[in-house]
């Protein structure tokens, strides 16, 4: 695998091309713009790559929805207020089980916030629709992982037909780094939902409450079945621990973080362990479906949890929802470092343990 020196934006574009994507619909918004402009640049060399800069994010989303129904591997990229507008098309994709792929570059919020960085779009990514949040949401931690998870996003979206979000941020997209892009396995093909061979009438609105209820219960069943294959997490305590051995490994204090903050936390764990502190890191790689079993295996054996995130507690809420103890006395103390819309550096995390 050859070394390259690439930005997160460039890596996303490469991943989409390597995943077999053919259509991008988008609207410029920092820090997602360079994905659109980067895709368009590549499209000048490769005429099979199609693109449209739409009139707004709403149209970008619905163009993606239309294109995927036609059987094209289409995607969009957005950020912040654009992620808000994107909920319209994402909600339709929730309802109609469309393989909708979006790369979200989180930026500060609410409102126009900052154009720089944040981890405040977790709730939007998972539960931004008027439904139950049955979406697949990946949170990459490094530029190389951004590549792997973007490719994986297309595969899981087309295999399981749930809207899929690669939830990244302005820092990771703007980081330029030496990378070796690697992906195990091939691409899942794109089948049209309607074609000349079908005669389908597809709906997203129901006459009776019971009809929708039935549809949702079926979706939930599919979502849970999918979760077994798709859920991903990492436990790090100096060494990476395989998920089936989470139970046997343990640490006294556990940091939980996701995305780029987890990269800083990983460095912090190395430093803390070299000082003799028994600290570990649990990192959900899929925020939805959430690695609930894996979390509970580890949490059972720790004394204290530190949530570290660039938000006031969107990850904390997810963690708390997923701690699943019948024995309440065993629930460890939960503390955290919550810094909405600003970066968190290794030293700050290390300092939590002084």
């Amino acid at each position, binding site marked *: 695998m050859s070394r390259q020196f690439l930005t997160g934006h460039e890596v996303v574009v490469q991943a989409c091309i390597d995943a077999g994507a053919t*259509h991008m*619909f988008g609207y410029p918004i920092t820090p997602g713009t360079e994905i659109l402009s980067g895709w368009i640049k590549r499209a000048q060399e490769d005429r099979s790559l*199609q693109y*449209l800069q*739409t*009139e*707004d994010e*709403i*149209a970008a*989303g*619905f*163009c*993606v*929805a*239309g*294109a*995927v*129904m*036609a*059987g*094209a591997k*289409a995607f969009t990229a957005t950020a912040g207020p654009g992620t808000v507008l994107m909920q*319209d*098309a994402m*909600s*339709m994709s929730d309802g*109609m089980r469309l393989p909708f792929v979006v790369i979200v570059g989180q930026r500060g919020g609410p409102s126009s916030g900052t154009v720089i960085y944040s981890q405040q779009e977790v709730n939007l990514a998972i539960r931004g629709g008027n439904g139950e949040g049955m979406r697949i949401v990946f949170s990459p931690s490094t530029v190389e992982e951004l590549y792997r998870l973007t490719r994986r996003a297309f595969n899981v979206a087309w295999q399981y037909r749930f809207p899929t979000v690669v939830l990244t941020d302005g820092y990771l997209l703007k980081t330029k780094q030496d990378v070796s892009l690697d992906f195990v396995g091939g691409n899942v093909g794109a089948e*049209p*939902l*309607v*074609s*000349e061979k*079908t*005669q*389908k*009438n*597809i*709906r*997203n*609105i129901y006459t009776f409450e019971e009809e929708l209820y039935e549809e949702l219960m079926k979706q939930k069943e599919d979502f849970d079945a999918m979760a077994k294959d798709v859920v991903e997490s990492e436990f790090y305590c100096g060494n990476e621990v395989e998920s089936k051995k989470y139970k046997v490994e343990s640490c006294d204090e556990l940091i939980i973080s996701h995305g780029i903050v987890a990269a800083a936390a990983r460095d912090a764990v190395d430093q803390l362990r070299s000082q003799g502190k028994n600290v570990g890191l649990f990192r959900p790689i899929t925020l939805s479906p959430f690695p609930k079993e894996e979390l509970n295996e580890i949490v059972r054996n720790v004394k204290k949890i530190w949530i570290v995130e660039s938000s006031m507690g969107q990850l904390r809420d997810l963690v708390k929802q997923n701690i699943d103890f019948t024995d309440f006395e065993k629930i460890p103390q939960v503390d955290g470092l919550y810094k909405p819309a600003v970066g968190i550096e290794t030293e700050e995390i290390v300092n939590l343990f002084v």
Partner: protein
Amino acid sequence: MSKDSKFCPGCGQPIILQTLYRILQEQKSEEKAVLGLDIGCALLAWDFLPINTFQTHHGRVTATMVGFKRGRPDSLSFAYTGDGGAYAIGLQSLMWAAMRNDPITVIVANNSVYGMTGGQTAPTTMKGQVTDTSPHGGELDPMTGPELLRSINKKAYLARTAVNEIQNVKMYLTRAIETQRQGNFSLVEVLSFCPTNWRVKGPAMIEFLNNMKEPFKMGEF
């Protein structure tokens, strides 16, 4: 040809849809056709015709069919919508589809009210027309879609007719489909009955429709 209609008795929409289907049959193009549906009474068409159909969101059918057509350029892509979906919440996407000359056909059923929600003011509500949300009568001149789009797309096929002029409905839709085949944007607005929300019956319904032809000019633009 179709299942039981879910449209109200006297509704004009089945006339438009059946005319469209007849053209597709005559052209043996049923399999190529895909009918995207806006939300509003248009959604009731979801299982009305034996062709591929899908519902979208309110105001979003045009953008969805722009994406569909780009995903499958050899399809005949139809965006079927009411006046609210076309000219209020969906106007931005409609205008841009026309600006870009996206080769899709938009069919607008204009009945001057929001039908599905019970007859509120629409962008096509006429001056003086009383609705739940304009109890003193409409204050504005109604939106005239084909005329508006004419100024931004010279190649588009743009026309308006009414459900009681069925030969024109057929002729205009045929020309719109031909325009799509040639790679250009088309829109046909059809004035349509809404006896339920107009709160009229029989001859009064025809009279209401014919009165609409005053602010809404018939013909090709």
